[in-house]
């Protein structure tokens, strides 16, 4: 495959037509998508939390909590309701529901999942400890004896304790320092057991929950929330990917070496012009051959939607990515997506500055075609051979009036050091503070660039990061 074939095809112009997305209209920039959707989701979260605790508030007459046992039990109930709600939210966040992925984006979702996970762990432990101690005081038992009583005399409590154990295990292995030591597969399968926690923790909420025991709107609503979650999981994890893949039937068309350690994978399929794909978004890919069908990895698409093919540009870093070099044309691919808010549509300003490092150019290259004219790109690479998609960038620069700077060298060389500093950036891009900044590259570069940008006065909400680490 040569670059000449890409020229017209790689550009998104006007509205897609059934004949490959080309039309005579001049290149258009995407309309923006504001933060309204994200804020709505935030408001829904807080409303849900209030609704989860409200039954307790309404059921408890003021002044009825007399004595430490009552107070402990009340606090245990509150933390229990909060934990139940947070568990639902945690699983929902991981349901790959299109709405969430579109409005929040994978990066923000994984961060939220981590923070809420820590809170959930504390809430579950507090719930358990408070209620055991509270009940022990009411019934005059020791704490250990009370645990025995709970396990033997109360319905569904054995499974609830197992669920708590699972959640603690999942939570502890999620701590970054511990997670780094564990093999990925172990961590992944442990995390899968949290579905089991959802199931095992279900029963005791209704057989022993003071607020949920009585039939009524509260109980019905709580059950409805569970049903909605199951529906979301089915839809996001099963039905939607199934529909997408049956409809588009993606398969590998060609694998091209871009540099010594980078390959581009071209994929074709049916009705590609009907995929609602924005430059900068990613899919989770499974290549259905003997070695790779069981693992799924996120890769950005490295060219804007063109109705004829999709392309991934992947740097070889591990055993899985090394296997990608040997993909045979014709191999079927299973894709989930497109996901992500790292797109031209999510900018808050008219113009943008893009900073790429190494293979991080892939999503930015796709996005460049959808940004309004006047964008700027700074491309960091260790050596000239590491610059990928060089010719395509030149074409885009010419057709969309994009300024492109290649900053070559190690981080400590004078050139890159000078550019990657607040005055250096301001000299290259004088209107830096009136632009959105998109960053994609190795973590070291991204962290450093964020520091520099913040020092130069760019606001956090104008900095967009592409980051799939989870």
């Amino acid at each position, binding site marked *: 495959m040569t670059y000449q074939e890409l020229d017209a095809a790689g550009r998104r112009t006007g509205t897609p037509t059934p004949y490959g997305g080309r039309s005579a209209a001049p290149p258009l920039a995407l309309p923006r998508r504001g933060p309204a959707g994200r804020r709505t989701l935030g408001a829904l979260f807080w409303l849900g939390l209030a609704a989860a605790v409200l039954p307790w508030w309404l059921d408890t007459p*003021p002044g009825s909590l007399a004595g430490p046992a009552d107070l*402990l039990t009340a606090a245990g109930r509150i933390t229990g309701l909060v934990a139940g709600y947070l568990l639902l939210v945690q699983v929902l966040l991981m349901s790959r529901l299109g709405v969430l992925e579109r409005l929040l984006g994978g990066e923000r979702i994984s961060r939220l999942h981590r923070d809420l996970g820590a809170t959930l762990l504390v809430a579950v432990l507090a719930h358990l400890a408070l209620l055991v101690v509270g009940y022990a005081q009411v019934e005059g038992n020791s704490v250990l004896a009370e645990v025995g*009583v709970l396990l033997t005399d109360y319905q569904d409590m054995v499974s609830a304790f197992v669920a708590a154990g699972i959640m603690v295990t999942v939570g502890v292995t999620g701590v970054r320092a511990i997670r780094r030591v564990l093999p990925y597969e172990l961590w992944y399968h442990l995390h899968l057991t949290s579905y089991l926690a959802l199931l095992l923790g279900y029963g005791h909420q209704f057989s022993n929950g003071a607020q949920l025991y009585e039939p009524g709107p509260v109980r019905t609503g709580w059950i409805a929330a569970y049903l909605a979650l199951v529906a979301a999981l089915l839809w996001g994890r099963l039905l939607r990917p199934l529909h997408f893949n049956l409809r588009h039937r993606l398969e590998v068309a060609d694998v091209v070496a871009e540099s010594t350690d980078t390959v581009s994978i071209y994929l074709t399929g049916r009705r590609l012009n009907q995929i609602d794909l924005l430059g900068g978004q990613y899919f989770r890919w499974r290549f259905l051959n003997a070695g790779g069908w069981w693992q799924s990895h996120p890769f950005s698409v490295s060219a804007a939607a063109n109705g004829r093919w999709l392309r991934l540009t992947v740097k070889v870093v591990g055993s899985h990515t090394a296997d990608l070099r040997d993909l045979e044309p014709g191999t079927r691919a299973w894709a989930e997506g497109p996901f992500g808010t790292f797109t031209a549509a999510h900018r808050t300003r008219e113009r943008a500055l893009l900073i790429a490092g190494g293979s991080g150019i892939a999503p930015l290259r796709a996005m460049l075609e959808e940004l309004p004219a006047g964008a700027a790109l700074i491309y960091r690479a260790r050596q000239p051979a590491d610059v990928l998609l060089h010719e395509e960038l030149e074409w885009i620069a010419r057709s969309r009036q994009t300024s492109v700077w290649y900053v070559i060298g190690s981080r400590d060389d004078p050139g890159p050091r000078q550019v990657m500093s607040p005055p250096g950036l301001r000299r290259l891009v004088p209107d830096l503070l009136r632009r959105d900044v998109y960053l994609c590259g190795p973590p070291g570069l991204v962290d450093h660039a964020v520091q520099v940008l913040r020092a130069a006065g760019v606001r956090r909400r104008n900095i967009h990061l592409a980051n799939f680490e989870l």
Partner: protein
Amino acid sequence: MRRALFAITGLAAGTTALVVLKGSPAATPVAAGELPAGTVAVPGESAPANRAATRPPSARPSGTPAPKASASRTPRPKPTASATTKATTSAPRRTTAAPRTTTAAPPATNRKVTGPVVTNEFGNVQVQITVSGTKIVNCVALELPSGGQSGQRSDRVDAAYSGTSGQVVQRQSASLDTVSGATYTSRSYQQSLQAALDQAR
């Protein structure tokens, strides 16, 4: 990670605030359902102020005697390690009496739980039960319709249900035989009792 710390702190503070708000006896004697829902989210700075104020004269006989009010105030509910450890250290002392099943809990603490005022066309009914462990040991009607025929009916209901050997204590539940000729009062009594039982649970 910083946000997780904020969230955890918020959880602890929110839980404490909710418990303190509910625990403070000076909260308005309005039925809980009539409180604005917004107060749930607001961490209560108003709670100490309410507590400091003298108890407002309530229209109906209040079920919570004064000594209990102070009891609910003293243990600042910090729903974390401090509360847990305090309880665990005191627990082993009791272990000799401990190995017993739930149903026959020792009479450790007698709690009084007051049901809500239930209004029917003859007047108000309010019931207070005394609970020891999980057992009802006494049941008192704080308020019943009075005067004339209503008063006579109330007396019959009271005689059948209340007291340490009344039907409530015998049956340990709110499903009681309706007193003939006093259906409304019987029903209201059972409603208030059921609510009290739900609270006590």
